[in-house]
Protein backbone atom coordinates (compact mmCIF):
# COMPACT_ATOMS: atom_id res chain seq x y z
CA UNK A 1 0.00 0.00 0.00
CA UNK A 2 1.48 3.32 -1.07
CA UNK A 3 1.94 5.63 1.90
CA UNK A 4 2.94 9.23 2.49
CA UNK A 5 3.80 8.55 6.11
CA UNK A 6 7.55 9.19 5.83
CA UNK A 7 7.04 12.60 4.19
CA UNK A 8 4.33 13.58 6.69
CA UNK A 9 6.48 12.51 9.62
CA UNK A 10 9.45 14.53 8.34
CA UNK A 11 7.24 17.58 7.77
CA UNK A 12 5.99 17.27 11.33
CA UNK A 13 9.59 17.10 12.60
CA UNK A 14 9.06 13.71 14.20
CA UNK A 15 11.59 10.91 14.39
CA UNK A 16 10.49 7.31 13.88
CA UNK A 17 10.87 6.80 17.63
CA UNK A 18 8.70 9.89 18.35
CA UNK A 19 5.94 8.62 16.09
CA UNK A 20 6.21 5.10 17.50
CA UNK A 21 5.79 6.57 20.99
CA UNK A 22 2.69 8.54 19.96
CA UNK A 23 1.19 5.44 18.33
CA UNK A 24 2.13 3.00 21.09
CA UNK A 25 4.02 0.69 18.72
CA UNK A 26 7.67 -0.25 18.24
CA UNK A 27 10.03 1.79 16.05
CA UNK A 28 10.33 -1.32 13.88
CA UNK A 29 6.60 -1.09 13.19
CA UNK A 30 6.95 2.51 11.95
CA UNK A 31 9.94 1.53 9.78
CA UNK A 32 7.98 -1.41 8.34
CA UNK A 33 4.95 0.76 7.49
CA UNK A 34 7.12 3.45 5.87
CA UNK A 35 9.00 0.89 3.80
CA UNK A 36 5.83 -0.96 2.75
CA UNK A 37 6.73 -4.11 4.66
CA UNK A 38 3.59 -3.89 6.78
CA UNK A 39 0.06 -2.77 6.04
CA UNK A 40 -1.32 -1.32 9.28
CA UNK A 41 -4.56 -2.58 10.75
CA UNK A 42 -7.56 -0.28 10.43
CA UNK A 43 -7.18 0.69 14.08
CA UNK A 44 -3.50 1.64 13.66
CA UNK A 45 -4.28 3.50 10.42
CA UNK A 46 -6.88 5.56 12.31
CA UNK A 47 -4.37 6.24 15.10
CA UNK A 48 -1.83 7.46 12.51
CA UNK A 49 -4.51 9.64 10.90
CA UNK A 50 -5.34 11.12 14.31
CA UNK A 51 -1.68 12.01 14.96
CA UNK A 52 -1.49 13.98 11.70
CA UNK A 53 -5.11 15.17 11.85
CA UNK A 54 -5.73 13.90 8.34
CA UNK A 55 -8.14 11.39 6.79
CA UNK A 56 -6.69 7.87 6.39
CA UNK A 57 -6.73 8.11 2.60
CA UNK A 58 -4.53 11.22 2.71
CA UNK A 59 -1.84 9.05 4.30
CA UNK A 60 -2.44 5.68 2.69
CA UNK A 61 -3.55 5.65 -0.93
CA UNK A 62 -6.58 3.46 -1.51
CA UNK A 63 -5.43 0.90 -4.11
CA UNK A 64 -9.03 -0.08 -4.86
CA UNK A 65 -10.37 3.39 -5.63
CA UNK A 66 -10.37 4.31 -9.30
CA UNK A 67 -10.54 7.85 -10.60
Amino acid sequence: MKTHLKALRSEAGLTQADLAGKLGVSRQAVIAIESDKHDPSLDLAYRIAAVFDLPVEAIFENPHRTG
Partner: protein
Amino acid sequence: MKTLKPVTEYTIGFAAWMVAYVAAVFFAGYYFRGMTPLGLPQAPLLYAVALLPSIPIGGTILVFLRFMDRSDEYMRAIMTRRFIVATGVTLFISTAWGFVKNYTEMPGSGLDYTYMIFWISFAIISPFVRDSKVRTA
Protein backbone atom coordinates in the same frame (compact mmCIF):
# COMPACT_ATOMS: atom_id res chain seq x y z
CA MET B 1 2.93 -1.64 39.56
CA LYS B 2 4.95 -0.75 36.47
CA THR B 3 4.50 -3.23 33.62
CA LEU B 4 7.68 -4.51 31.99
CA LYS B 5 8.24 -3.95 28.28
CA PRO B 6 7.46 -7.11 26.25
CA VAL B 7 11.11 -7.59 25.27
CA THR B 8 12.31 -7.14 28.87
CA GLU B 9 9.72 -9.57 30.17
CA TYR B 10 10.70 -12.04 27.44
CA THR B 11 14.43 -11.77 28.23
CA ILE B 12 13.91 -12.24 31.97
CA GLY B 13 11.37 -15.06 31.51
CA PHE B 14 13.51 -16.92 29.00
CA ALA B 15 16.66 -16.60 31.13
CA ALA B 16 14.81 -17.83 34.24
CA TRP B 17 13.50 -20.91 32.44
CA MET B 18 16.97 -21.61 30.99
CA VAL B 19 18.45 -21.54 34.51
CA ALA B 20 15.71 -23.98 35.56
CA TYR B 21 16.52 -26.14 32.53
CA VAL B 22 20.24 -26.36 33.34
CA ALA B 23 19.41 -27.17 36.98
CA ALA B 24 16.94 -29.88 35.90
CA VAL B 25 19.45 -31.45 33.48
CA PHE B 26 22.13 -31.58 36.20
CA PHE B 27 19.68 -32.91 38.76
CA ALA B 28 18.43 -35.64 36.40
CA GLY B 29 22.02 -36.57 35.56
CA TYR B 30 22.97 -36.95 39.23
CA TYR B 31 19.72 -38.78 40.00
CA PHE B 32 20.32 -41.40 37.31
CA ARG B 33 23.80 -42.00 38.71
CA GLY B 34 22.26 -42.52 42.16
CA MET B 35 24.05 -39.45 43.48
CA THR B 36 21.07 -37.61 45.02
CA PRO B 37 19.38 -38.11 48.41
CA LEU B 38 16.54 -39.79 46.48
CA GLY B 39 18.64 -42.95 46.11
CA LEU B 40 18.81 -45.23 43.08
CA PRO B 41 16.43 -44.53 40.17
CA GLN B 42 13.16 -46.42 40.37
CA ALA B 43 9.63 -46.03 38.98
CA PRO B 44 7.52 -43.94 39.20
CA LEU B 45 10.00 -41.25 40.34
CA LEU B 46 12.33 -42.29 37.53
CA TYR B 47 9.79 -41.12 34.93
CA ALA B 48 9.09 -37.88 36.78
CA VAL B 49 12.80 -37.01 36.93
CA ALA B 50 13.28 -38.00 33.28
CA LEU B 51 10.51 -35.55 32.35
CA LEU B 52 11.84 -32.77 34.58
CA PRO B 53 14.14 -31.05 31.99
CA SER B 54 11.25 -30.80 29.50
CA ILE B 55 9.14 -28.66 31.85
CA PRO B 56 11.36 -25.54 31.47
CA ILE B 57 11.25 -26.07 27.69
CA GLY B 58 7.46 -25.73 27.90
CA GLY B 59 8.01 -22.62 30.02
CA THR B 60 10.19 -20.97 27.38
CA ILE B 61 7.56 -21.66 24.73
CA LEU B 62 4.90 -20.01 26.92
CA VAL B 63 7.21 -17.02 27.47
CA PHE B 64 7.69 -16.69 23.72
CA LEU B 65 3.94 -16.96 23.02
CA ARG B 66 3.27 -14.28 25.66
CA PHE B 67 5.93 -12.07 24.04
CA MET B 68 4.12 -12.44 20.71
CA ASP B 69 0.80 -11.67 22.38
CA ARG B 70 2.10 -8.51 24.10
CA SER B 71 4.00 -7.15 21.09
CA ASP B 72 2.55 -4.62 18.64
CA GLU B 73 0.76 -5.80 15.50
CA TYR B 74 3.84 -5.71 13.25
CA MET B 75 6.10 -7.65 15.64
CA ARG B 76 3.27 -10.13 16.29
CA ALA B 77 2.74 -10.64 12.57
CA ILE B 78 6.39 -11.28 11.72
CA MET B 79 6.98 -13.43 14.83
CA THR B 80 3.97 -15.53 13.88
CA ARG B 81 5.27 -15.96 10.33
CA ARG B 82 8.74 -16.87 11.61
CA PHE B 83 7.24 -19.31 14.12
CA ILE B 84 5.23 -21.03 11.38
CA VAL B 85 8.16 -21.23 8.94
CA ALA B 86 10.53 -22.49 11.68
CA THR B 87 7.94 -25.10 12.69
CA GLY B 88 7.71 -26.28 9.08
CA VAL B 89 11.52 -26.50 8.78
CA THR B 90 11.67 -28.39 12.09
CA LEU B 91 9.00 -30.87 10.99
CA PHE B 92 10.85 -31.45 7.73
CA ILE B 93 14.29 -31.93 9.32
CA SER B 94 12.93 -34.16 12.12
CA THR B 95 11.05 -36.35 9.64
CA ALA B 96 14.03 -36.56 7.26
CA TRP B 97 16.27 -37.43 10.22
CA GLY B 98 13.82 -40.20 11.20
CA PHE B 99 13.86 -41.72 7.70
CA VAL B 100 17.66 -41.53 7.43
CA LYS B 101 17.95 -43.18 10.87
CA ASN B 102 15.59 -45.98 9.79
CA TYR B 103 17.57 -46.87 6.70
CA THR B 104 21.15 -46.12 7.78
CA GLU B 105 23.45 -46.45 10.76
CA MET B 106 22.78 -42.86 11.81
CA PRO B 107 22.69 -42.61 15.62
CA GLY B 108 20.22 -40.83 17.90
CA SER B 109 16.47 -40.48 17.79
CA GLY B 110 16.42 -36.94 16.48
CA LEU B 111 13.61 -36.14 18.91
CA ASP B 112 16.11 -34.94 21.52
CA TYR B 113 17.17 -32.22 19.11
CA THR B 114 13.72 -31.02 18.02
CA TYR B 115 13.73 -27.94 20.24
CA MET B 116 17.27 -27.01 19.22
CA ILE B 117 16.44 -27.53 15.53
CA PHE B 118 13.42 -25.24 15.94
CA TRP B 119 15.42 -22.34 17.41
CA ILE B 120 18.30 -22.73 14.95
CA SER B 121 15.71 -22.71 12.14
CA PHE B 122 14.06 -19.66 13.69
CA ALA B 123 17.40 -17.82 13.87
CA ILE B 124 18.33 -18.70 10.28
CA ILE B 125 15.01 -17.73 8.69
CA SER B 126 14.45 -14.56 10.77
CA PRO B 127 16.58 -12.21 8.61
CA PHE B 128 14.57 -13.33 5.57
CA VAL B 129 11.13 -12.98 7.17
CA ARG B 130 10.83 -9.25 7.87
CA ASP B 131 7.72 -8.54 5.84
CA SER B 132 4.31 -9.03 7.44
CA LYS B 133 2.54 -8.93 4.09
CA VAL B 134 1.50 -11.98 2.12
CA ARG B 135 2.35 -11.02 -1.41
CA THR B 136 0.14 -12.56 -4.04
CA ALA B 137 0.52 -12.30 -7.81
